[in-house]
């Protein structure tokens, strides 16, 4: 079984995240970058399956600037067999459509039985790429899974849907995405970090995966304006001296909030 896990480098959500007001792009210099937590959980799903099934190959795939290579390597240190990074100048500022085409192209190039993604990235928060990629590859998408069971020729799970949950099954090859309900990922250990240095790390360009970023056949979404909102400031802060509940009631009533 060949499992490809889609991982993304994102600005660390624990820090201040900035957009460059001129280019509209994430300001990578302004914040630390990390492997997106949901991508790590997706990798954990693949690795824990591989733990019990020796003939499993786990590939991490990321579309990112070259500088993100170190972040992608973390996936190798955690236990993936190989990594593929899709790097191309033409992908800077790529919209969702181009990102999906590029990742679908890379997946066709790599080959896969199962693709595992996060349900939402913490920076794009589109929550759409897994379904877009499935459409482009003409495979089923079983997305927003709270649990994953990989079996011979199919994958099953509980899907978090808008009005409750549903049980879904997809025949392989398929694209799935997982939610935060799945367990936190393992930490890379020393052995893993050393082994990672020897694992295959391939860098692909758009031309190599057969995608043309400049095509006019697809309509693209573009940012036409960007403005920073003034940060919020603190208001009144009181220490409870036995009457804070009363005072809050007063405040709510005065502001017509109660």
């Amino acid at each position, binding site marked *: 079984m060949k499992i490809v896990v889609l991982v993304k480098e994102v600005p660390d959500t624990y820090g201040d995240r900035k957009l460059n007001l001129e280019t509209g792009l994430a300001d990578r210099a302004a914040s630390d970058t990390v492997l997106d937590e949901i991508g790590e959980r997706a990798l954990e799903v693949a690795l824990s399956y591989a733990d019990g099934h020796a003939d499993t190959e786990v590939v991490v795939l990321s579309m990112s600037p070259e500088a993100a290579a170190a972040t992608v390597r973390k996936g190798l240190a955690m236990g993936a067999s190989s990594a593929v990074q899709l790097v191309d100048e033409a992908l800077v500022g790529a919209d969702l459509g181009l990102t999906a085409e590029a990742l679908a192209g890379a997946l066709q190039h790599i080959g896969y039985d199962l693709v595992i993604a996060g349900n939402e990235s913490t920076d794009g928060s589109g929550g759409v790429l897994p379904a877009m990629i499935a459409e482009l590859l003409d495979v089923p998408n079983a997305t927003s899974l709270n649990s994953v069971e990989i079996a011979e020729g199919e994958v099953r799970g509980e899907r978090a849907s808008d009005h409750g949950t549903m049980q879904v099954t997809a025949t392989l090859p398929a694209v799935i995405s997982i939610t935060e309900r799945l367990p936190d990922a393992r930490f890379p250990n020393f052995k893993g970090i050393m082994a990672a240095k020897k694992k295959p790390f391939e860098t692909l360009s758009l031309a190599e995966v057969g995608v043309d970023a400049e095509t006019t056949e697809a309509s693209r979404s573009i940012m036409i*304006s960007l403005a920073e909102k003034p940060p919020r400031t603190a208001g009144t802060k009181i220490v*409870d001296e036995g009457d804070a509940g009363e005072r*809050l009631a007063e405040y709510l009533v005065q502001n017509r909030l109660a």
Partner: protein
Amino acid sequence: MTDYPADSILVLLDTTPSGALTKSAAGLLGAAAGVGTPVALIVAAGGEQLASDAAALGAARVLVAEPTELGAQLTVPVADALAAAAELVRPDAVLVSNSIEGREIAARFAARSRSGLAVDAVGVSRDAEGVIAHHSVYGGAYNVDSAVTWGAPVITVREGAIDARAEAQPVSIERLEVAASARRAAVIDSVDEAVVTSSRPELRGAAKVVSGGRGLGSEEQFALVDQLADVLGAAVGASRAAVDAGYVPQSYQVGQTGVSVSPQLYIALGISGAIQHRAGMQTAKTIVAINKDADAPIFEIADFGIVGDLFTVVPQLIAALEARKA
């Protein structure tokens, strides 16, 4: 009947498993009416019955479809219906709810038709070149506008973000035949619909929200959050720590990987105010925080902060509010 207005906005309305329009319908049609003529698409068994609801919410025309694999396959049947409707209506924009089901239908449709896709819009407007989507990103720290290079944009709209409402329209129904795309799809084995037992407002779009965090300490004690919410007529939310601890279901989670809310009033009880939590609530009009740690980051954005024990402050607050009501 293929005479759809030149400024048609195709709006896919979500339905519940038990066959009603979801709450997002009013906002979607309200947004559409602001930029063109709303044409609703309802993909449901017996969708005709819902057409009058859609018209009452502003749909000038209603398309009803029931593709063969509806309910049996995930996403694909509805995406096929949306593709058929877009072919017929030739809209200026396609609006879909940014719900889990909605956004994936939009995703498949946009990828298939190679349309520009804009997600999680909090508003739409129109300029000389077409329909523009307005977004609030990085937890409301930036306002971003997006447009597409050509053609009709596919826009998913954040649930509860649109206040505009459209005027009621006379009912005009057309049945839409859908040719299956035969795209491979996942199979739905069973559906477990969450029963809505509470009369409380829904978290998304609520005017007031009371949220509880790890500081509540247990599932039983989390009831205090419910009590305050009920006195205020507010929806109930939670931090991820409270969800992870099992005090409440995941659907209550406010924050970057949960629901984004922009209520008039947000009360945070026993929540430290981690940046990921703030990302989902800092656009609230008024923020109130109760936390026993004077250095909790939630106080940096609170309009009214109380350093104190929530288990003494909240019962006193509830009593004071009830006394005023009586």
